Structures are given as structure tokens and as C-alpha cells.
């Protein structure tokens, strides 16, 4: 497993932060941006390069909601559940999307790794509530039906790709 993992991307990120322990969060963010999650293989590698224990990096990675240790889908759908979106009924939208894709709170990514569904606390677009994003594209004033249509459209887009 280790032999097949290409660390050149990680090396590049590490050198851009001068292998500094203090930059661990930024380093993890950059790695996640590239792989869309934090692959297990990078932990022992980072530990060695940064001179910290693997478990302390694991501790940081599990502390922040934003880091994911599991591979994410091609489409990452973030449903805002901040106060404004919540009172304008974001939960029924979340429930609809989850049931359309067969996902739940503990199962966030479809088995074919096409969709990942997660909630965020506020996207800062309260005027457009309830709002969701697909790979950082904003979809305003959603309803459960509009969400279902969006999922169908994304599925089709994926099939034609």
C-alpha cells in the first residue's frame, strides 16, 4: 500500500510550508484540497517529516469537522443548517437528498463515490436561505422538490460525462 502512494504532492505542500510543525493545519488543508480527503498513508509520512507523532496529527484531523478521513464523492453537496436556513426549513431538504441517495448521518458518501452529503453551520448567504452548494456552486432558495430535481440533473450529467 505504502509503496504505491505517490508522495510528490505532499512533498510539494510540505516544502511550501518549510516543513514547519506550526503549519500543520494549513498543510492538512492543502492535502485535503488536492485529494478531497486525508489519505491514511500521508499520516506516518507527515509525522516523520514534521517530527511529530502520527497520533497527534490524527488528533488534529479528527478535531476539526472540516477534515475528512474518508474519500469524498465527485459531487460534494453541502446543505446549510445555520440559523437562517434552519428556520426556513433546511432539514426537510437534507432529509429528501439523503433519502434520494440512500445516505444517512453516519453514511455520508454513496458507495459509487459520486455523491457526498454533509451539513455546514453557515455558508454566509443567509439572504438566499435555505441554501446549498454543490462543489462550491451555490444553489439558493431551495425546496425538497428543487433538491430532488437537482440530484436527478447531477446524476444525468455524471452518466453523460
Amino acid at each position, binding site marked *: 500500500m*505504502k509503496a504505491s502512494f505517490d508522495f510528490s504532492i505532499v512533498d510539494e505542500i510540505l516544502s511550501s510550508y518549510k516543513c514547519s510543525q506550526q503549519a500543520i493545519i494549513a498543510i492538512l488543508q492543502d492535502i485535503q484540497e488536492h485529494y478531497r480527503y486525508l489519505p*491514511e498513508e500521508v*499520516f*506516518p509520512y507527515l509525522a516523520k517529516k514534521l517530527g*511529530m*507523532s*502520527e*497520533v*497527534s*496529527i*490524527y*488528533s488534529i484531523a*479528527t*478535531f*476539526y*469537522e472540516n477534515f475528512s*478521513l474518508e474519500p469524498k464523492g465527485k459531487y460534494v453537496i453541502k446543505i446549510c443548517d445555520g440559523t437562517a436556513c434552519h428556520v426556513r426549513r433546511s432539514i426537510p431538504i437534507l432529509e429528501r437528498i439523503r433519502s434520494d441517495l440512500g445516505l444517512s448521518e453516519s453514511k455520508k458518501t454513496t458507495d459509487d463515490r459520486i455523491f457526498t452529503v454533509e451539513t455546514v453551520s453557515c455558508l454566509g448567504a443567509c439572504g438566499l436561505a435555505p441554501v446549498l452548494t454543490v462543489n462550491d456552486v451555490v444553489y439558493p432558495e431551495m425546496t425538497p422538490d428543487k433538491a430532488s430535481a437537482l440530484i436527478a440533473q447531477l446524476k444525468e450529467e455524471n452518466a453523460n460525462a
Partner: protein
Amino acid sequence: MSEKQYMTIDGIPVEINGEKNILELCQKIGVKMPTFCYHSDLSIYGACRMCMVENKWGGIEAACSTPPRAGMEIKTNTERLRRYRKNILELLLANHCRDCTVCENNQKCKLQELAMRFNIEGVRFPNRAKSTKNDDTSSVCIVRDAGKCILCGDCVRVCNEIQNVGAIDFAHRGSKMVISTAFGKPLAESPCVGCGQCAAVCPTGAIVVKNNIDCVWEALDNPSVRTSVQIAPAVRVAIGKELKCQDGENVMGKIVAALRRMGFDEVYDTTLSADITVMEETAEFIERLENGGKLPLVTSCCPGWIQYAEKKHPEFLENISTCRSPMQMMGSLIKEQNKGAEKKMFHVAIMPCTAKKFEASRPEFMKDGQPDVDAVITTQELILMIKESGLVFDELEPEAVDMPFGAISGAGVIFGVTGGVTEAVLRRVSENKSRAGLLEAANAGQRGMEGIKEFYLPYGERQLHIAVVSGLGNAERVLLRASAGEHFDFIEIMACPGGCVNGGGQPYFSNAKEARSKGLYEVDRMQSIRRSQENPIVNSVYKKIIKDRAHELLHVHYTAKHED
């Protein structure tokens, strides 16, 4: 000179004398503050909030993380503080497995003690303890149980700050927070070296020493098995209050008597094989010095350190002495002596150490699939066995160990304290055979509880640079200096701070290492023979058992296991 500064605690003026927090000052006026997460050797964490004090404006501060200031007025025991403390305890108990009667740490638990002290009569919240079934039993040294963890972080800090091992840390957040290895892997697959210091500082039963008592009782009850036992130097001064002994009091004779009453056929003292270690290791050191061998020579007695070297510093494996640890030497000699005997020999070692359990199970110490040491039990387990057997320990008449490994030297006894191995070697090599020579060896610089002790010793034309290190974090510092090119000739490394007296398998209390090392030096002073080479039994063992097979019986080569 600056003027004296005072603060007021519970109406009593207290002089501030460089104390780092209010908690220490409270102790000064005889108030024992309740704490879970405070240990004087660890960094201050301020998580448990049990040590809160109230200031004169009604503000609440944690005594452990507040430095004293002149003119400060605080109270340690008010209606509000008592209410808060009870509340904290109830919340902890709501998240805690409360099967105290079947807990390894029953009656040694800080949570139990404080719940009693604050008179907790009921818990208002439903119990949400995590299942205790996810015990991590993969390590042969320690057992973890998340259901008893109160997240004080003591284990995390000792593992990372003091030992530099980094096997465990906090993972996840808020109500989902747990103590975990990286990716929740079993401890046996983590960087854990089995030193057991986490179990020593754990205030509850969340990390305990792995219990191996059952197989010992089984062997004792088996009429077709002959049983022998060896007792390590540091065990004799660590029985302590649980069996009505003084902390640091040498009760070796009573331990021997108790073990015979339990049914052991032969009882020996690991000190004798420590004497043999001194002979072998000194010879190896002189050989390396004279013939340009690999220096520094690093001691090999401590199995926690051996695992640390294997996992983190394989480049130093060549430096480690090829001598087996005293425990393994004794095991090897006893098995050799009983080779071909009618009854199978079951050999037990009583150790201050959890990592010894791992050492005994190493393939290097197996002969024909049989380990030289069949079971290792810690001092804590010995106390349990004595209690279980119903013996009134403090009334036992002391007895002596058996021949042919009967006599010991003072040099072997002090193996149990940091600096002891070094001092024993100094006594071996010193030309001065008078009493003054002993004093000279004692004052060379290896004694005391500091984590790193260094000194120079003349040897012919040269000045030997010697370092005595305890605590793996300190070992890391010295190894880094050696890697960077600094020259050392001899380094003694013990994984536990203070050496074996403070081992992970010893009963835990603060200041234990000082009391116990004082006890060991006292045993040393009371010996007529204080140099290993003067122990007549050492010579007879060489003549009768070892003969020309020292290499096969007494030495070992460790090889790197975790290379990637």
C-alpha cells in the same frame, strides 16, 4: 533582597516562595485540593476543574493554572465550590462505568476516592458510559477500557511529554472525544513501548496493568510442574501501605516467605543475575574501549528502552549492549539448570515493570518454543496474590532466598534505581578496592533523581563521557546530541523517570521514587559484599552453569523490526 510576599488562603496569610500555582500554596497550609488532571511532573492542563477556588470578588479560578500573586485572597471550601465539585463528579460518574467491585482499580481509584470525599449519594443524570467491551487487550503490557476514562489527559501528557513515545492522544471532539491511537489501531500496532507510565498516572481504571495472575496460580496448583520465581531489586522496597509496610521499606524476606507459603518450590533474587550483568557488561565496555568498538555503549536492561530504540532509533541498536537483561539471564540460567529434569520448570518473574511482560514473550528468548520466563507479574499483581492467599503479610517471618543463586552484592541491588547500573559498573572497574573506593564511585555523579546526569571519568589517558538518563523523553534528548556528533562513551537508559523504582508495574503514589531509592541504597549499604565481582555465587555460577557458554546463555542481538 526583595520583600516577602504574601497571599491569603482561607483567612491564613501564606508566604509566596516561587510556587508556580495556588495549588502548591494550598498544600503548604495543609489543604489537599481535589484534582484529577494535575500531576506535578506534567504540564498544567486545567481540565478537570476540581481544584477551583473562589476569590474575594466571587470569581472562580482553577488553583492549578493560577499563579499566586501578592495580596490575593482566596477560599478553598465554600458552599458554592462544594456544589460545583459535586456537580462535576456527578457528570463524570454519569459517563463512567460504575461496576467498581469488578474493576482492577477498585479502592485505588481517584474518582471513587473523590466521590466518597464529597459524599456523592446519587447521580441525577442517566448513565451514558461507553461500552466497556471495546477494551483494547492487544498489548501484553497494559489494558485500556474507554468506559472508565474521564478524559483528564494524564496518560496523553505522560506518553508525549515525559516519554516522547506518542502512542496515544485525544481524538474527535466534544461528546465524541476519546483517547485513541492513530486511526484507533490496537495498542500493539502503535508506537507504544509498554512502559506503563500511562497506567501509573491514570486516576481511574481506564488504563491498567495486564493481569497474568491466573496462569501463575495454575502452575502452582499443578503437581506435575516445578515452580521457581525471581524477585527484582525494585520490588522489595515498593510493597508499601497496601500490605501495611512503610514506603521504601525493604521487605524482601517477607516476600520470600510469602512466595514459599503460596507454593513456589524455588525462590531467587534477580540481584544475582544483575551481578552477572555487571560482569558481562563491564567486559563488553572495556573490550569496546580497548579495541575501538562501537561507542557509546548503551545499557540493555530496560525493555521499554529496547522497544523505543527498535521503533524510533534503529540506528542505535548496534550501540546497545548485547547483555540480556538480568531477568532474562536468570530465566536462561534456571531453564539451563533444569534441562532434562523430570518435571517441567515454570519460571515466574516478579518485576516493577509492565514492559518486562513483553520482553518475556519475545522470540529471542524462546528455546524450542518455550519462553525462558513463563510469566511476568508486577509488584501490583504480587500484592493482589498475597491478599488473595490470605497471608497476613506484616506478620510473616522473613526468610532468605534459595541456593544455588543465594548471595547478592549491593551493586546488583541498586540496579533498581536510575544510576545504579552505572555505579555497579564503576565499582567493577575501579582500581580502588577500599571503602573509600566505594565512596568515590557513589559520588561520581550518577545518583539522584534528575532525568539527565552527566560526568567525566578518567580511564588511562582518556576522560570517559558518561550519561545516566531516565525517562524516554530525556533519552531522546541525549540520543539527538549523540546523533549530532557529540561523543559519549557510556549511556545508561531507563525508560521510567527515576528508574525501576518508579516502574509502571509499581503501586503508585507521589514521591514514591525518592522513598524507594533511599530504601535500595540502604539495602546496598547493609551488604557485606558490595561489588559484583566479589560475590562468590557469581564465580560459582560461571564455573558450574555458564562455563564457556556465556554468549549463548547471557547475550542477545536485537534487530530493527519497524523499518520502512
